[in-house]
C-alpha cells in the first residue's frame, strides 16, 4: 500500500504525514472558530440593537457601527480567512503532490494573520480606527499586513502548482491560484484607492471591491473546497472537468465586472452601471452551469449525504445557486429600484457568507479534520451542527428577504420612514432569534472537533475507503500512465497554450474591469465635477472634517446613505438626486449600502441644532420610535453639554447638501445648460425639490386641505409616536426632550388654536425651532392630529375684559409689541422677517391669561421674545394680555408662526 501511495503522491516518496502539516490545519481551524465566535457575538449584539437600541449603554467602544465593522471583517478575514488557510494546508499538498513551501513559514503566517491582522483589527475598529468602506473596515495599517499575509500565502501555496504543466491542474488548483492572485490584486484596489479618490469615484472602486471580496476571495476558495471534497468523498471524479473549467474562466472574467451593480441608479455613469448589470446576468448563467456540474458530480450520494463534510458541501452548492441567481436578479434595474438598501440585500449577503461560503468552509475543515489521525472527532455533534445551522441560516435568509420586500413596498408608497421601521421589527425579532440555532450550530461544530475519540474521523473515512475500493480508477486515468501515454500530444500543447492565454487574459480582464468600471467612470465623473461645480463652492471647515471622521468612525453611513438615487421614489422622499460634485470632498465616499435610517445627503438645514444634538444624545426623547443608538460618549453627561466631537459631528451634518442648496437654483441652471443631452443629469436638475425631506421646515401659509380626519385613536397614537417626546403625553410641553430644546415646545394645554393654524404648522413646521414639518403623514392622519392638538386646550371661560382695560392694553401693545407681532397681531410686524423664530400669530392661537403673563414675565429662551417684567408693570402686562387675546379668530386662514 505504501508503495502505491508514494508513487501516486510524489516521486520523491513523500508520505501522508510529511505531505500535509496537520498542525497548521488544526491551528487555523481552531483560530477560524475562535474568530467566528467573536464575529457572531458582534453580529448578535448589533441585531439586538435594532430592538434594544441602548444595549451598548454609554460605551464608546461597543457602538453599533464599530461592532458592525468588527462583525463583517471578522467573518471575512477571521473566520473564512482562517478556514480557507486550514483547508489550503490540507488540499494544496494533495493537489500539487508536494508539501507547502515551508512549515516554519506557515507558523509565521498563522501568527501574522491572527495576531497582527485579525485581533488587532478587532481592537482598532472598536477603538475607533477604521475605514467606512464595506468589506474593508479594518484601518489602512491593518490592510498593509493583510497584503503581506496574502503575499506570504501566495509564496506558501502557489509554487507547487507551477512545477507541473498547466494542463495537469485540477479545477480546485485553478481556483486556489485564482483566489490568491486576484485577491492580491483586488485588495489594495478596494482598500486603498477609495481613500485617494473623491465621492462617486471612490464609490465606483468601493463597489468593485464589495463584489471582488466575495467574488475573487471567498467564492474561488469556497469552490476549490467544493470541487475537492465532492470527488474525495464520493470516490468518483467530478462530472465534467470541461464544464468546471468553463465555469472557472467564466467566473473570473465576469466577477470583476459586477461591482458597479451596488450603485445602480447612482451618479456613476450609466454605461458602467449597465455593463455591470449585463455582467451580473451573465454571471448568473455561468453559476447555473457550475452548480449543474457540481450537482451531477454528487449523483449517487443521496439527497442528504451521509458523510458530514459532503453534506455541508452539498448544501453549500444549493445556497450558491440561490444566492447567485438572486444576485443576478437584484442587479436588474426593475428589482433593484425596489429592494436596494432593504434587508433583502442583507439576507442576500448573509446567504453568501453564512450560507454558501460558511457551509463550504465547514465542509472543508471537517474533511481535512477527519484526516488528522490524532484529532478528536465527534460525529454526532457535527450532525447536530449541520441541522442547527440549516435551521438558523435558512430562517434568517427567508426572514430578511421577506422583510426586504415589506420595506420596499413601504418605501415605494411614500410611507413615513418610521412606519417602515415599525413594520420591520417583527422580522428583526425573528432575525435575532435565528441567531440561537446558528450559535448553537457553531458550538456543536466546535464540540464536534474537540470532543470524541481521537482518530474517530479517520476511522470513519477508512470504512468509506474500504467500500470505495470497488470503484477503482480506470487504469487509463492513472496519472502516470496517462501522462506517459499522452506525452506532449498536440491537444496538450493546445490546452497548455489556451490556459496560458487564458491566464494572461484573466489578469488582463481584471485590469480591464478596473479600467472600464473604475478608471473610465472616474474620468467622466471628474469632467462632470469640473463643469457642474458652482463658483466658490464651500470647502469643508476643519470642524466639519473632524465631524466627518466621527461620522465615519461610528459607522453612520452603514445606516444612513448619502446618495439620493435617480429613482422617482428617492426624488419624492429626499429630493434632487445626488450629483458627482456634491461629494468632491469625500475621501472616502460615505454613500452607504443600507438604509435603516433615512438618507442624509440633504440633512443640513433640515433640523435645528438643538434637535440634532439631543437626537445624538438621546434619540428616543425627540423621536420615540427611533431605533438609533444613543451616542452619549460624545457628551459630558447631558445633551446641553456636548464635547467638541459632538459639535464637529453637528457641523458635518449641517454641511450635508449645503453647497448645492447655496448654489441652487442658479448653479443648477448653469450646469443644466451644459448637460442638456444627459437625461440622468437632467433628472437631478429638474427635480421639483432640492431637499424634499418631509420634516424640513418651509415657508408658512401654504398647506392643503386635510379633508376628513382619520379616527381619533389614530391621531392619539400618532401623537404618542411622534409628538409626545417634545410636547409631552398631555401636550403640556413637558416631554422628555423639552428641557433640552430652545425654544421649549409649546404648552398646547395653555393655548387655543385655530384648525388652520395647527394645519399650517403640521404641514410646514416652525422655522428656527425643533418643530418639524410632517409632510410624510397622510392628510387624514394630520387632520386627526389637528383635532388632538385642539383637544389639549384647558382654557376656561374668562370674563369679558372691560373696554377701558382693552384700550389700555392696546396702548401698551402699540408701544411695545407691534414691531414684531404686527398691528393686527398676526406676527407680521416690520421686524418679523429679521427674526430667527417668527413672532407668535395671535389670530391663529390664543394663549391663556396665565400663559401670556408667564411669557411676558420670563420671555422665551431661544427666541427674540424678551422678558418684560422690568419694563411693564403687572397691570400693563395683564392689559396687553387681554388685548392680544382679542386678535384670535378661529376661522381665519392664518399666516405667520408659532412657538
Amino acid at each position, binding site marked *: *500500500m*505504501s508503495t*502505491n*501511495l508514494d508513487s*501516486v*503522491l510524489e516521486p520523491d516518496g513523500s*508520505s*501522508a504525514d510529511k*505531505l500535509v502539516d496537520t498542525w497548521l490545519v488544526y491551528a487555523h481551524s481552531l483560530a477560524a472558530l475562535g474568530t467566528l465566535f467573536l464575529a457572531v457575538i458582534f453580529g448578535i449584539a448589533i441585531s439586538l440593537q435594532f430592538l434594544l437600541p441602548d444595549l451598548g449603554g454609554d460605551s464608546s467602544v461597543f457602538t453599533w457601527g464599530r461592532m458592525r465593522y468588527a462583525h463583517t471583517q471578522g467573518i471575512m478575514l477571521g473566520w473564512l480567512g482562517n478556514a480557507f488557510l486550514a483547508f489550503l494546508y490540507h488540499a494544496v499538498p*494533495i*493537489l500539487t*503532490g508536494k508539501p507547502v513551501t515551508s512549515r516554519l513559514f506557515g507558523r509565521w503566517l498563522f501568527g501574522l494573520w491572527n495576531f497582527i491582522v485579525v485581533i488587532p483589527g478587532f481592537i482598532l475598529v472598536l477603538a475607533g480606527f477604521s475605514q467606512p468602506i464595506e468589506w474593508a473596515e479594518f484601518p489602512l495599517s491593518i490592510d498593509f499586513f493583510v497584503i503581506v499575509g496574502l503575499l506570504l500565502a501566495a509564496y506558501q501555496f502557489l509554487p507547487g502548482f507551477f512545477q507541473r504543466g498547466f*494542463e*495537469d491542474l*485540477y*479545477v*480546485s488548483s485553478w481556483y486556489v491560484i485564482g483566489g490568491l492572485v486576484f485577491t492580491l490584486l483586488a485588495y489594495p484596489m478596494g482598500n486603498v484607492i477609495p481613500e485617494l479618490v473623491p465621492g462617486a469615484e471612490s464609490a465606483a472602486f468601493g463597489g468593485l471591491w464589495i463584489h471582488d471580496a466575495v467574488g475573487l476571495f471567498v467564492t474561488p476558495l469556497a469552490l476549490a473546497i467544493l470541487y*475537492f471534497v465532492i*470527488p*474525495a468523498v464520493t*470516490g468518483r*471524479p*467530478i462530472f465534467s*472537468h*470541461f464544464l468546471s473549467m*468553463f465555469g472557472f*474562466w*467564466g467566473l473570473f*472574467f*465576469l466577477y470583476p*465586472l459586477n461591482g458597479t451593480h451596488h450603485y445602480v441608479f447612482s451618479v456613476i455613469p450609466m*454605461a*458602467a452601471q*449597465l*455593463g455591470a*448589470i*449585463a*455582467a451580473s446576468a*451573465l454571471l448568473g448563467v455561468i453559476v447555473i452551469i457550475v452548480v449543474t456540474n457540481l450537482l451531477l458530480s454528487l449523483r449517487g450520494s443521496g439527497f442528504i449525504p451521509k458523510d458530514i463534510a459532503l453534506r455541508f458541501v452539498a448544501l453549500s452548492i444549493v445556497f450558491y445557486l440561490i444566492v447567485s441567481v438572486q444576485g443576478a436578479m437584484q442587479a436588474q434595474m426593475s428589482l433593484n429600484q425596489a429592494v436596494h438598501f432593504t434587508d433583502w440585500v442583507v439576507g442576500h449577503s448573509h446567504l453568501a457568507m453564512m450560507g454558501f461560503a460558511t457551509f463550504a468552509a465547514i465542509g472543508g475543515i471537517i474533511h481535512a479534520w477527519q*484526516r488528522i*489521525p490524532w484529532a478528536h472527532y465527534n460525529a454526532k455533534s457535527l450532525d447536530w451542527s449541520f441541522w442547527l445551522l440549516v435551521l438558523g441560516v435558512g430562517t434568517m435568509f427567508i426572514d430578511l428577504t421577506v422583510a426586504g420586500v415589506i420595506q420596499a413596498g413601504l418605501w415605494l408608497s411614500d410611507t413615513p420612514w418610521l412606519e417602515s421601521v415599525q413594520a420591520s421589527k417583527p422580522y428583526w425579532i425573528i432575525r435575532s432569534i435565528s441567531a440561537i440555532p446558528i450559535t448553537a450550530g457553531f458550538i456543536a461544530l466546535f464540540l464536534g472537533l474537540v470532543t470524541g475519540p481521537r482518530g474517530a474521523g*479517520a476511522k470513519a*473515512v477508512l470504512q468509506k*475507503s474500504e467500500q470505495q475500493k470497488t470503484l477503482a*480508477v*480506470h487504469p487509463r*486515468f*492513472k*496519472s502516470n500512465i*496517462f501522462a506517459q501515454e*499522452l506525452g506532449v*500530444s*498536440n*491537444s*496538450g500543447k*493546445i*490546452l497548455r497554450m489556451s490556459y496560458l492565454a487564458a491566464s494572461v487574459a484573466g489578469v488582463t480582464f481584471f485590469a480591464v474591469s478596473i479600467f*472600464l*468600471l473604475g478608471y*473610465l467612470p472616474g474620468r467622466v465623473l471628474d469632467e462632470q465635477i469640473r463643469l457642474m461645480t458652482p463658483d466658490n463652492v464651500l470647502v469643508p471647515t476643519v470642524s466639519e472634517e473632524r465631524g466627518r471622521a466621527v461620522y465615519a468612525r461610528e459607522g453612520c453611513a452603514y445606516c444612513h446613505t448619502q446618495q439620493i438615487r435617480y429613482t422617482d421614489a428617492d426624488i419624492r422622499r429626499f429630493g434632487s438626486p445626488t450629483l458627482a460634485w456634491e461629494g468632491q470632498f469625500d475621501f472616502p465616499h460615505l454613500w452607504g449600502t443600507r438604509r435603516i435610517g433615512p438618507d442624509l445627503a440633504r440633512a443640513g438645514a433640515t433640523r435645528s441644532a438643538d434637535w440634532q444634538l439631543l437626537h445624538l444624545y438621546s434619540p428616543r426623547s425627540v423621536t420615540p420610535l427611533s431605533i438609533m443608538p444613543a451616542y452619549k460618549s460624545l457628551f459630558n453627561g447631558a445633551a446641553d453639554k456636548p464635547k467638541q466631537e459632538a459639535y464637529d459631528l453637528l457641523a458635518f451634518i449641517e454641511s450635508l447638501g449645503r453647497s448645492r442648496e447655496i448654489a441652487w437654483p442658479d448653479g443648477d441652471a448653469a450646469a443644466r445648460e451644459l448637460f442638456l443631452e444627459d437625461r440622468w443629469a437632467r433628472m437631478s436638475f429638474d427635480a421639483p425639490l432640492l431637499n424634499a425631506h418631509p420634516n424640513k421646515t418651509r415657508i408658512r401659509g401654504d398647506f392643503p386641505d386635510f379633508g376628513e380626519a382619520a379616527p381619533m385613536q389614530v391621531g392619539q397614537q400618532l401623537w404618542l409616536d411622534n409628538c409626545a417626546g417634545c410636547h409631552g403625553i398631555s401636550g403640556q410641553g413637558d416631554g422628555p426632550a423639552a428641557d433640552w430644546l430652545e425654544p421649549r415646545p409649546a404648552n398646547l394645554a395653555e393655548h387655543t388654536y385655530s384648525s388652520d393654524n395647527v394645519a399650517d404648522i403640521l404641514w410646514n413646521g416652525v422655522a428656527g425651532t425643533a418643530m418639524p414639518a410632517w409632510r410624510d403623514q397622510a392628510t387624514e392622519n394630520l387632520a386627526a392630529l389637528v383635532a388632538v392638538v385642539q383637544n389639549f386646550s384647558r382654557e376656561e371661560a374668562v370674563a369679558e375684559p372691560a373696554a377701558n382695560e382693552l384700550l389700555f392694553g392696546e396702548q401698551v401693545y402699540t408701544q411695545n409689541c407691534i414691531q414684531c407681532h404686527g398691528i393686527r397681531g398676526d406676527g407680521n410686524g416690520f421686524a418679523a422677517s429679521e427674526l430667527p423664530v417668527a413672532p407668535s400669530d395671535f389670530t391663529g392661537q390664543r394663549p391663556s391669561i396665565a400663559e401670556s403673563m408667564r411669557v411676558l414675565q420670563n420671555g422665551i429662551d431661544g427666541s427674540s421674545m424678551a422678558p418684560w417684567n422690568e419694563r411693564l408693570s403687572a397691570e400693563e402686562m395683564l392689559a396687553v394680555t387681554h388685548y392680544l387675546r382679542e386678535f384670535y379668530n378661529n376661522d381665519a386662514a392664518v399666516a405667520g408662526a408659532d412657538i
Partner: protein
Amino acid sequence: MITNAIVLGSIILAVLYFLTWLIRSDFREQIERPKHHFQDRVKAYDQGVFEQENGK
C-alpha cells in the same frame, strides 16, 4: 458600449471554448485528465493516512 463589449466578449470566448471541445476529441480527453489524476492523488493520500493510523 461597455455592455456590448462584456456580452460579446463573453459569448465569443464561450463559443470558442465550446467549439474546440466539440471538434477536438483529443482536447476533450485531455481536459478531463486532471480530474482523474486528482482522484488518484486524493485516494492515495487517504490510504496513507489510514496506514499511519493503523501503524503500518
